[in-house]
């Protein structure tokens, strides 16, 4: 791997952010997480007065709805922020007029995207921590912390979200549209990936859709490592499945991105 490109990308992105960081993006994302948490809190405590359905406990392995929903919303914040940044990198270059010069330079895409991803991860951790603190106020409790599981969940999530970002990035660059593509994907993920409710409640075809998005498994894994109630062998199964799907996304995304870049460059003037 070309560490030089990686380092250069991080330095460049860091400088751009220092000078013109889109704070409204950050605030917007934290607020979205807050509203999701707040909505769940109102529903649980006031609308249904803490009465969970019988199936909830057996499906999730926990009776703590608030922690369940808050962990989901934090993971959602994480994936949205990663996708927003990494997918839009080349699109941003196109907008800023630097795509052409970037393409003239001989560099490895992997290092370039990883550089972006690494920097974004640091920012996202900061944002997620703020959102987690708000979550604690609304009842987020860690019941059965599994440190090994947690580290695996974080690393695997980063790996998988990177894959999802690549594919989304291809769609964005091809359609030259970020507003419609990103929001459609995000609202769809919120529905099918089991963010605030167990995905088993969904009809079959939506469940299938959810199972081909690695976010679903990552959310389950993170919940299992924080809230417990998940047998060890099932966790291993989840890890393997998420890893396989994530790898498929990356293996598909990388060559696809190269193709889309060529099309984007051709259409750039048109």
């Amino acid at each position, binding site marked *: 791997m070309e560490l030089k490109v990686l380092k250069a990308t991080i330095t460049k992105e860091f400088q751009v952010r220092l000078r013109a960081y889109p704070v*409204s993006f950050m605030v917007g994302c934290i607020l979205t997480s807050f509203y999701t948490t707040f*909505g769940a809190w*109102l529903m649980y405590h*006031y609308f249904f007065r803490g009465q*969970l359905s019988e199936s909830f406990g057996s499906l999730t392995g926990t009776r703590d709805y608030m922690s369940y929903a808050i962990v989901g919303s934090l993971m959602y914040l994480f994936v949205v922020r990663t996708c927003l940044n990494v997918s839009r990198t080349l699109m941003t270059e196109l907008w800023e007029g630097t795509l052409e010069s970037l393409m003239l330079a001989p560099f490895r895409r992997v290092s370039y995207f990883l550089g972006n991803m690494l920097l974004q991860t640091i920012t996202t951790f900061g944002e997620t921590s703020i959102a987690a603190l708000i979550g604690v106020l609304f009842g987020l409790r860690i019941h059965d912390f599994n440190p090994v599981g947690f580290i695996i969940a974080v690393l695997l999530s980063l790996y998988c979200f990177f894959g999802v970002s690549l594919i989304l990035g291809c769609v964005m660059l091809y359609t030259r549209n970020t507003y419609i593509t990103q929001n459609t994907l995000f609202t769809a993920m919120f*529905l099918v990936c089991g963010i605030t409710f167990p995905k088993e409640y969904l009809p079959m075809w939506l469940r299938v859709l959810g199972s081909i998005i690695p976010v679903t498994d990552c959310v389950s894994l993170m919940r299992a490592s924080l809230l417990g109630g998940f047998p060890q062998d099932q966790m291993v199964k989840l890890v393997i499945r998420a890893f396989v799907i994530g790898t498929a996304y990356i293996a598909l995304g990388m060559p696809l991105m190269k193709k889309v870049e060529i099309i984007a460059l051709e259409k750039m003037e048109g």
Partner: protein
Amino acid sequence: MKYFIKVLWAEAVKQHRNYFNNWMIYISLFVWPLLSFLSAYYSYSSFNVDGTLISYINGNNILVFLMLGYMAMSFFRSVVQSAWNFSRERQSGTLEYIYLSTANRLAVLMGNALSSVFESSIVMLIFGLLIVFSNRASINVNTISLLVVIFIFIIMALLWGVFLNACFLYSRDTDFLFTILEEPMEIFSGVKVPIVIFPAWAKIISFIFPLTYALEAIRQVMLNGASLQAVSTILFVCLGIIMVLLFATLITIVVVEKHMRKTGNVVLF
């Protein structure tokens, strides 16, 4: 009056040509609300629905309860989008031309809101009506009250849009509009959770949004069979809001025009 309607219609047609030239618009107008609606509906599955305090909500009609919420919200949400689009008039410089013409300002704003209220909500409306119709056994409608409430509801949505448009005659910074009006409106207006059971402080916030009252009236007459007398208080509040919105819009139009004449900044802030 004839002239007023001519301007209003011209603006509505212009808006239509501007935004409905691409099928992608339907994704934001229909697919997103539909996905949010489904998410909310399935999140109810985690709970024992019959355990709620609201007497007229049960496992059978909760789908209609939620659908009414999202249907009503799509009207109010579409005008937020229309206001957002209206601010582009300023950026692209066409607002200046409108102000140079003799067109009635209120008619322009109203034409804009009119086109978005009816056009942008139509797909969601049809879908919602299908859902309500297929669950008709679970609802309890008072037809006369419903007709009156729908009439007031549409006027309210329209004037809410006109008012938001008027606000953006003043500034081009529209991002905050989404921050304060998209998700908070969904939560605090009682789209997913009825405001009756809100804690006091949340209730106070919910009173800011006109959708709160309109939605409560619609649900009462469609799910609880409420007579006009039973919803009279809400309807009077709605009429009050209509007056306030109209009055505030007229004042804003005058203030903005004065301000623009003084500064000459029609395209800037």
